[in-house]
């Protein structure tokens, strides 16, 4: 948010507000829902304001009405027919808009002021104020609104003013709650804390710092409150508690319904006023939804949305090499968002995994490691698309399998230990159920009576005592959850386990335990493991081969000895410099300046060129090929051309 000091002359301030509004309009313009709502609201406001000009008849032209004028069907003279008093329904509808909107807006104004003040005070001052106001709000939140309104209006005079006050005085509860939680959120923001620290007055902080940030939510809330007030007014009027002299839409319906429109078949007298209410309320609702989406944009995607189907290319099929368990060939992945050029997240990655082998996948955050791993089992988010390449496993190309065939391989052939098992386990199901579930799915012939034994065996394998098996994930510690995740990954005896930064969120002791466990399990069960990590120490200790990724491409791929003792790619060299080496105690650690490239702005040449210490002209224009040196040592750098 705005944190810099800005000139506070009135002109500058209005200019700032104007530009902010312009910016808002720029985004809002693209929101179809909101625009439709705004349009609907604008037409009805226009109608209400210019009612005397638009309406064909005066609002009180009853004098000439006779028996023959009552409930006349729509005609050239009366477009929407006449009502129980012989009045023109169309004209009454137009003047009714004035009454309904007046009640709606004024009542909502009262509610918003009360709710806003309560919410601000409770949120800002906290303590006793908050306690008292929120308890008070809670009470009014559970007392049913409409019956209370009915009681109060029935006991007082049913005048327009009374109705406005009653609806306004009872409709503030949700506003108070919404404003309070927003105030609480804003209050702990840095610049508010700073303003407090330099001794700004409370009034100043509330009006200058908090209110501007609460305002947008208050506006959305106001839109909602207006629509509720209009609905409440119409209900009260329909129940016979409206002002008999002010013909609102609800009042029109009350008269028509109570005075024989139903039995005369005068549908126009019943349909038209209701249509007005629906029009306004729907317009307000759509406007509110639109505003909400602009102020609070959310990515409307989830894991079950059908992803983009992979691009098939049968042309350059290589038969997988012998002894390879998993072979990835030329895999490329794009993120495709509507209206934007595709982001090339992973390009042209090939590697193999042999039985019992442990391959380390290293690189900074944002280099496409997780994207690559998710793509192996086609678990990419909806925007991700495999645009090239194959993944061979067990003689099948996972990229071209059907969903059902793939579901059989997921977990039973290749399982994943996700990073941050905190959220990777379902919080409302006990751990043992989440483990036995995969056994039931993939090993249907597994005897039911041995299920509990198997789950206990798996948990004990990762060091979780049997009596914790039916606990919920939140009852586990972070390390236990990660170990339960590992137990789950092993449940169907997979050949390949992908461990995606399995220890990132854990403290060092637990990290060491879990890594040791993984390594011993690998040796015991003969698993092949792909180990995704930032931690080069772990790689040196455990891995057989290492794949270094940078900006979505392979930087270097070699055995662990070559990577540590004879790295060829400058990125690998820089990564190793950033890592403490206990054998050379006096060595200075250095970090690589800068960040990995953003996917939407990839460099034209080598992706590491902007940060590379050995960069030369060619690097900026030409992307280096993947050069193959001896012993399956692959490097993507112009510098190694000379070595070949």
């Amino acid at each position, binding site marked *: 948010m705005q944190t810099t000091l800005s000139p506070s002359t009135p002109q500058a301030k209005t200019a700032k507000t104007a530009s902010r509004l312009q910016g808002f309009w720029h985004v809002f313009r693209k929101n179809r829902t909101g625009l439709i709502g705004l349009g609907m609201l604008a037409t009805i406001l226009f109608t209400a304001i210019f009612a005397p000009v638009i309406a064909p008849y005066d609002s009180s032209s009853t004098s000439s009405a006779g028996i023959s004028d009552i409930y006349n069907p729509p005609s050239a003279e009366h477009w929407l027919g006449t009502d129980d008093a012989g009045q023109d329904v169309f004209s009454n509808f137009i003047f009714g808009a004035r009454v309904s909107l007046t009640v709606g807006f004024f009542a909502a104004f009262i509610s918003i002021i009360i709710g806003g003040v309560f919410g601000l005070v409770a949120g800002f001052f906290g303590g006793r104020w908050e306690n008292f106001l929120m308890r008070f709000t809670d009470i009014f*939140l559970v007392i049913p609104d409409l019956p209370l309104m009915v009681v109060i209006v029935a006991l*007082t005079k049913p005048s327009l003013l009374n109705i406005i006050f009653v609806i306004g005085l009872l409709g503030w509860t949700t506003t108070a709650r919404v404003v309070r939680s927003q105030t609480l959120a804003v209050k702990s923001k840095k610049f508010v804390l700073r303003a407090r620290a330099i001794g700004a007055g409370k009034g100043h902080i509330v009006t200058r710092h908090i209110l501007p940030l609460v305002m947008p939510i208050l506006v959305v809330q106001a839109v909602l409150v207006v629509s509720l007030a209009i609905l409440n007014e119409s*209900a009260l009027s329909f*129940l016979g508690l409206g002002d008999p002299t002010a013909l609102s839409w609800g009042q029109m319906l009350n008269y028509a319904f109570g005075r024989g429109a139903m039995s005369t078949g005068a549908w126009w007298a*019943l349909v038209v006023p209701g249509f007005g209410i629906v029009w306004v309320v729907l317009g307000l609702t759509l406007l509110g939804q639109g505003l909400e989406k602009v102020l609070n944009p959310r990515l409307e995607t989830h894991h079950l949305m059908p992803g983009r189907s992979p691009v098939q290319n049968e042309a350059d099929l290589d038969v997988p090499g012998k002894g390879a368990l998993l072979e990835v060939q030329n895999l490329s992945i794009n993120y495709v968002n509507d209206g934007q050029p595709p982001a090339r997240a992973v390009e042209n990655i090939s590697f193999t995994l042999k039985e019992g082998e442990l391959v380390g996948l290293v690189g900074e955050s944002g280099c496409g490691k997780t994207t690559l791993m998710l793509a192996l089992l086609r*678990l990419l988010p909806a925007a991700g698309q495999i645009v090239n390449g194959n993944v061979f496993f067990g003689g099948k190309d996972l990229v071209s399998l059907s969903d059902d065939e793939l579901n059989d391989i997921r*977990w039973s052939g290749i399982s994943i230990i996700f990073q941050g098992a905190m959220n990777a386990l379902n919080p409302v199901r006990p751990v043992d159920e989440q483990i036995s579930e995969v056994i039931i799915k993939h090993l249907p012939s597994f005897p039911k009576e041995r299920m509990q034994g198997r789950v206990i065996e798996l948990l004990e394998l990762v060091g979780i005592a049997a009596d914790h098996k039916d606990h919920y994930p*939140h009852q586990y510690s972070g390390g236990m959850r990660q170990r339960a995740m590992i137990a789950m990954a092993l449940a169907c005896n997979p050949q390949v386990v992908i461990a995606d930064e399995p220890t990132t969120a854990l403290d060092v002791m637990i990290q060491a335990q879990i890594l040791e466990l993984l390594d011993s399990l690998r040796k015991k069960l003969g698993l092949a493991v792909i180990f995704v990590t930032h931690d080069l120490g772990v790689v040196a200790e455990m891995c057989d081969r290492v794949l270094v990724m940078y900006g979505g491409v392979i930087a270097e791929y070699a055995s662990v000895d070559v990577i540590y003792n004879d790295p060829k790619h400058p990125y690998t060299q820089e990564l190793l410099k950033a890592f403490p080496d206990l054998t050379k105690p006096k060595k200075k650690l250095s970090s690589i300046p800068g960040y990995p490239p953003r996917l939407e702005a990839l460099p034209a040449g080598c992706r590491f060129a902007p940060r590379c210490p050995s960069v030369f002209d060619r690097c900026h224009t030409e992307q280096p090929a993947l050069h193959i040196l001896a012993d399956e040592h692959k490097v993507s750098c112009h510098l190694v051309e000379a070595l070949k």
Partner: protein
Amino acid sequence: MNRTRAFLKKTAWSLFTIIFVIILNFFLFRVLPGDPARAGIRDPRLKKEAIEMLRVRFGLDKPVINCFESLNPIEVGSCAINPLDTQFFIYVRNLMQGELGISYHTNRPVADILAERLWNTVLLIGAGQILSIVFGVVFGIFAAWKARTSVDYAAVTTSLIAWSLPTFWLGIILLFWGSTHGFPLAGKATPGMSSMPLLQQWGDIARHMFLPTLTYTIVYMGEYTLIMRSSLMDVLSEDYILTAKAKGLSTFQILKDHALKNAMLPLVTVIAINLGFTVAGAIQIEAVFSWPGLGSAIYEAVVRRDFPILQGAFLLIAVAVILANLIADLTYNFLDPRVQTE
């Protein structure tokens, strides 16, 4: 241990709210300008003595409350009125004995009238709630699962329109339609039905209930659809759904075993908060279809200025909503394993 404490705390808070409502209810009818004595007995032809007799009969001759001299509510102050003889304490005492006064209009005890009506309202709200929740949840699931497809857009648009419909107006339109399609127009049963076999009686009630329940279902379904949709969208973007997908579970299994329970939990709270609105809908529907429940009792009481009925009905509805809220709250605690053990 913690669960018991939370249970007691919530129950105590509901009790406090009920006491607040009882006091509010009493003073609303004494403080607001429409003096029930004048409003209820305002026939100008009545003689002064007759009015006085009626005032005594309805207890309106007694002072509203004692002299406010001390904090002890039952101390006799300088105004020399026994507080237990004031209208407030008579009201409270009667309330304890389940007496809600006597209807101005029918001269029958309010409690009896409301007791007859309560079950009809419970029947209507119950049927409507179950149907609107079931349909809303189903539509919400489809909308979220098929997010950003035409199924989703259709469900969301329909829900927003349904939400914008004034309940009573939708009732009128459906009644209008029903009147030409042979549906009964008013009430709960056809006169003379009580001598028929039980099955036929139920069939008759069901036919009478159809339109009111349909109105109710349409109006509230939209909201439940939207809430279920957004709740399920949240759950489906959680990491554990990705885990479930990686496990090779089918879409149906993921929805059934990993998403629905998680997404339904917030719905329980929303249903509870909505109960107040629900009653508002029931009042309007009952007024349109002359369904003999609490809502039409309120509607008739307003027309006839029958204040004891109005007072009793408001109290009954408010207490019912508060208790239902409490039950929903406790149910939530029971359903969500995260609350149980924290």
